[in-house]
């Protein structure tokens, strides 16, 4: 990786470290709630908390680390450094994705651990939970992309609305697919072809969103 990109990624982590400590801490608490108590209420609150943290992080990261660079005019400072539009876009995507992926991976790993270690939860649930979490990652990529490309809070909020509706629709749709609904209740850990196809599609969309963001940023002719 280009050294300037590394500098910019490190800079974003340093600038947002307090926010990230809070989110990682909150995710840790949510995970402990799932692990600590088999009580359904605490478990349920833990699950809601995990999704809430990820959804808030989607918009918070985009506003504080993407939109604010435009609104607070720190972008002028950054673009005056020996950096190209391509460097900036790659750094912004890398920093934002890495910051989002820390709590996201915590949620993914802990959900797998909990499902696989609890007799009361069928192992087949891992596929649905994983697909749901990948969908949140996809939603984040969409919000981040629109934030970077439109450089506006309105763009990010519109993306958030689309992503939120999309996620609800996704969950509803998943449960309507017989292969997924059946697997969810079984103890079979291996993913079926339907689940693998959906995962592949999600990954293609994520890569497509990131690629499109880079392409649009590289073609911009005005940066401030």
């Amino acid at each position, binding site marked *: 990786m280009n050294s300037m990109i590394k*500098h910019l990624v490190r800079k974003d982590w340093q600038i947002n470290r*307090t926010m990230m400590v809070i989110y990682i801490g909150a995710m840790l608490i949510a995970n402990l709630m799932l692990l600590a108590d088999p009580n359904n209420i605490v478990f349920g609150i833990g699950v809601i908390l995990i999704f809430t943290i990820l959804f808030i992080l989607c918009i918070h990261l985009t506003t504080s680390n993407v939109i604010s660079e435009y609104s607070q*005019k720190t972008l*002028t400072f950054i*673009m*005056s*450094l020996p950096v*190209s539009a391509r460097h900036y876009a790659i750094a912004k995507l890398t920093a934002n994705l890495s910051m989002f992926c820390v709590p996201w991976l915590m949620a993914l790993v802990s959900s797998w651990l909990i499902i696989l270690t609890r007799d009361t939860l069928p192992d087949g649930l891992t596929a649905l939970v994983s697909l749901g979490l990948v969908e949140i990652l996809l939603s984040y990529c969409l919000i981040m992309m629109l934030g970077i490309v439109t450089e506006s809070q309105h763009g990010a909020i519109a993306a958030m609305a689309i992503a939120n509706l999309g996620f609800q629709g996704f969950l509803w749709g998943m449960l309507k697919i017989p292969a997924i609904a059946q697997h969810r209740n079984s103890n079979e850990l291996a993913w079926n072809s339907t689940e693998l196809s959906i995962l592949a599609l999600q990954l293609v969309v994520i890569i497509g969103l990131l690629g499109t963001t880079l392409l649009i940023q590289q073609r911009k002719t005005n940066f401030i």
Partner: protein
Amino acid sequence: MNSHAVELRNVGKDYKYFRLNDISLSLPTGSITGFIGVNGAGKSTTIRILLGLVHQDRGSVQVLGQTMPDQQVLAKREIGYVSEDMRLYPKANLAWHMQFIQSIYPNWDQAYAEHLLKRFDLRAEQKIKGLSHGQRVKATLLLALAHRPKLLVLDEPTTGLDPVARQEVLSALMEVLADEQRTILFSSHNTLDVEQISDQVAFIDQGTIIEATSKEDLLDLWRRLRVRIEPGQSLAELPHIVQQQGNGQLQSLITNRYSPELHQIYQQAGLEIQAVEYLTLEEIFVASIQARREGKTL
């Protein structure tokens, strides 16, 4: 070494409500150029183009031997940029910014940075959001100067500063002028600031460069002549009159080509020249803008 640090040739940029009209501008290496224009004249657009922050629609831009915007990364390694609308990260302190810039520029001079810190009366541990506007400009200037750039670009750095902060910024600039290899482009609508530090001057108005020359030549060639004319005498045929004011026989003329020969031509035309006065840069700037807007060719 290139004889020009910056060369813009027929550079144009079209916006919906503004057009940069194929401007050409060269900054000799080691020069200090004052770039003067009213708000919205095209100063910031020109500066952003030469930094690669805005891509020109036409024309070529060479900065420190690099073609812009394609080679902006190489060029910006040697450029220090301070802009009135540039902001540092509000939640971080100045020490963090200094460390960040130091990690990017190998030429960072820590001793000089500390010297500037004292000179500007700044505290490294203070968060940016707690700084006044003047302190913020000085902090940005510190970051731009301490990596010892070959080209320093200052876009309205003194705008909005109180007189003390403004003088501090100008004094710091005077200090760095000692380095003859450093080229400085200083944009402002405040001609007094430019007059203090510049050796070259460029005027821009409505997206067009209307004057680009040495400050000494400009101050030497532009003069105000207080004259007495014969009743009914017309001055329209006289050469190089940019502006004419007054009623009756006592008139005040501004010329942009003053010389003993021109003085003689005016006298031969029957003018009784009572006084010849130098103009300030501001007077020259205002007269040039007015003349251009009236359609006169300077």
